[in-house]
């Protein structure tokens, strides 16, 4: 048995090497930067947790973090219910199914930067269809100057781009529910809401968890779209953590604080993902007592 176990290690070795080269080694470099200072010439000084303290204390980081959290919260609050609603409304059989699926898949096929560019042009007041249209309706819309407009543009863009993912995941969960469940519910006189709450939701919970995690991580790390559309502006109003980080690292070349910040960033994502996972997997344990009382 022992010998064969060693053989198994041999099999996963290439994968481990790949992960090491692509993830762990760069991560260690970042860790390395985060605890040292440099004045160029490849000279490094040990600074301990100084960078971390600096980042955590800085107003700039707090603001960026709040913006990012708010953005993710809004994205989840819109895309998840909307995605479920669209999935519920989609036909379950017939040729309309493939039509709907293709339609849903279309936005997902467009690269990030192209999406950004499309909306950047689309929203421009001078030549963009949306911007110009709104302006001609007398609505004062300008995402380069108005904070609210910039946020609205980014959120609508993300909803347009990524709700499909939630729809497709939920739809796959919904079509796997056997027809007898619906028949039984009809016989039990269940309302539309009761069917959703006690049949559909429990059955799509697993895929919904994946959808929430993916959308959270993705929106929390959003970079390309705001970079292309608003460039973080107007002012700093759409400077999310990712944009801030790049500005700090590439713009100001503050490698130490940037490294510390990216590690903090990484840990926040890890922590929040874990929280989502734990909460959602234990959700149905609580659901029982909740239903018992109404």
């Amino acid at each position, binding site marked *: 048995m022992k010998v064969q176990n060693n053989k198994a290690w041999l099999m996963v070795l290439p994968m481990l090497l790949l992960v090491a080269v692509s993830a762990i080694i760069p991560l260690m470099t970042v860790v390395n930067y985060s605890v040292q200072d440099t004045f160029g010439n490849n000279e490094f000084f040990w600074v301990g947790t100084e960078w971390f303290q600096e980042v955590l204390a800085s107003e700039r980081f707090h603001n960026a973090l709040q913006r990012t959290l708010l953005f993710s919260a809004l994205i989840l609050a819109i895309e998840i219910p909307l995605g479920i609603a669209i999935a519920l409304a989609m036909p379950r059989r017939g040729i309309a199914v493939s039509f709907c699926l293709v339609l849903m898949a279309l936005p997902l096929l467009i690269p990030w930067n192209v999406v950004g560019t499309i909306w950047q042009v689309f929203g421009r007041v001078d030549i963009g269809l949306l911007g110009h249209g709104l302006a001609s309706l007398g609505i004062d819309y300008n995402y380069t100057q108005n904070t609210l407009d910039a946020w609205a543009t980014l959120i609508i863009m993300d909803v347009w781009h990524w709700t499909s993912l939630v729809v497709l995941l939920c739809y796959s969960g919904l079509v796997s529910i056997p027809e*007898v469940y619906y028949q039984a519910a009809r016989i039990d006189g269940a309302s539309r809401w009761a069917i959703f709450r006690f049949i559909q939701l429990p059955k799509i919970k697993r895929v919904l968890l994946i959808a929430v995690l993916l959308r959270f991580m993705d929106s929390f790390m959003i970079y390309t779209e705001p970079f292309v559309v608003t460039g973080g502006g107007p002012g700093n109003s759409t400077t999310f953590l990712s944009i801030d980080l790049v500005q700090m690292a590439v713009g100001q070349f503050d490698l130490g604080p940037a490294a510390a910040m990216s590690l903090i960033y990484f840990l926040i994502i890890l922590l929040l993902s874990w929280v989502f996972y734990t909460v959602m997997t234990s959700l149905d344990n609580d659901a029982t007592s909740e239903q018992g009382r109404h």
Partner: protein
Amino acid sequence: MASIHLKNLGHRYSASDAGIDNPYALNPLDQVWEDGGAYALLGPSGCGKTTLLNIISGLLRPSEGRVLFDGEDVTDLSTERRNIAQVFQFPVVYDTLTVAENLAFPLRNRGMDSATIEARVSETLTMLGLERRANERARSLNADDKQKISLGRGLVRTDVRAILFDEPLTVIDPHLKWQLRTELKKIHERYGHTMIYVTHDQTEALTFADKVVVMNAGSILQVGSPKELFDRPRHTFVGTFIGSPGMNVLRCIFDGEAAVVDGVRLPLDEATIIAAHARGLAASGVSLEVGMRPESLVLVDAGASSADDPHCFNVDVIGVEDLGRHSLVRLRLGQQLLCALHPEGAEIPEAAALRFDPARTLLYESSLLVEAIG
């Protein structure tokens, strides 16, 4: 509870092209099923039993005829407004709810007050013997308990007019099948719900129902008590489908007093002879069939006693299968095969003869039983 009247009911799928080529999935029929009865629809897959069940439950609208519950026409009513309950092949429970909440579900949906709900639920839990598991999550139960919950969601309602079962024991282990089946039977005896049970398993159908409806190829062949179906199957299909092994059906002709199978005379009883003469079967010399249940045949030693006995005929033993409780003896009479049951432990005679009972020997013309009319 309600009586169910299926009035000139028939069904063809895709009624839009109900032309001559489109066959009936369910041939037109007229049936009245009594209030409080236990009925089983029995037949092979594709015989139309599920189509009929779906028409009664309202999942399918018949292309012709009406469905009446207690005289009220419900043909156009939706499933939920017919006040029926149904137990499906695979257990349907609401995973996230407890056993008690599952039972309360149909009552809550109908907006009943919580005191009534509580009383009904605890009563139903007692009926099903699930009191101890009331607060367990339904998902964690075994298949047989889940089926009980599906049934319970019907029993808990006071307005249920009929409870329908669609092969409810399919996923249940043999030992638990016995338990669940007898519990179902007891619930029926005690509470008198109208129950309709669809199955392909004759044991389930015969043990459960007061009246079994045997179906094949979209038609009802016979409706009767288990005893009637066993003793006097009106169609050779009923004879062979019911019973393990089924009835022996042998080609024969009628010579005026006996069925003649490959030259061997089997005297028939008075009633059958009169009925056969009334139809002129002796003169025509048409090809008929004679049916004998393996259970009605006794394997004896082909000695002197059997030689003079007109109710005995010699057979060749071609195989014996020991099935534990009894042996299945495969035999040949002339060119035709038949079988008989032999008790456990008894010896198989080397030269064998079969003793038959004329009263349990039936004659069939074109698969239909030859019997006195009226």
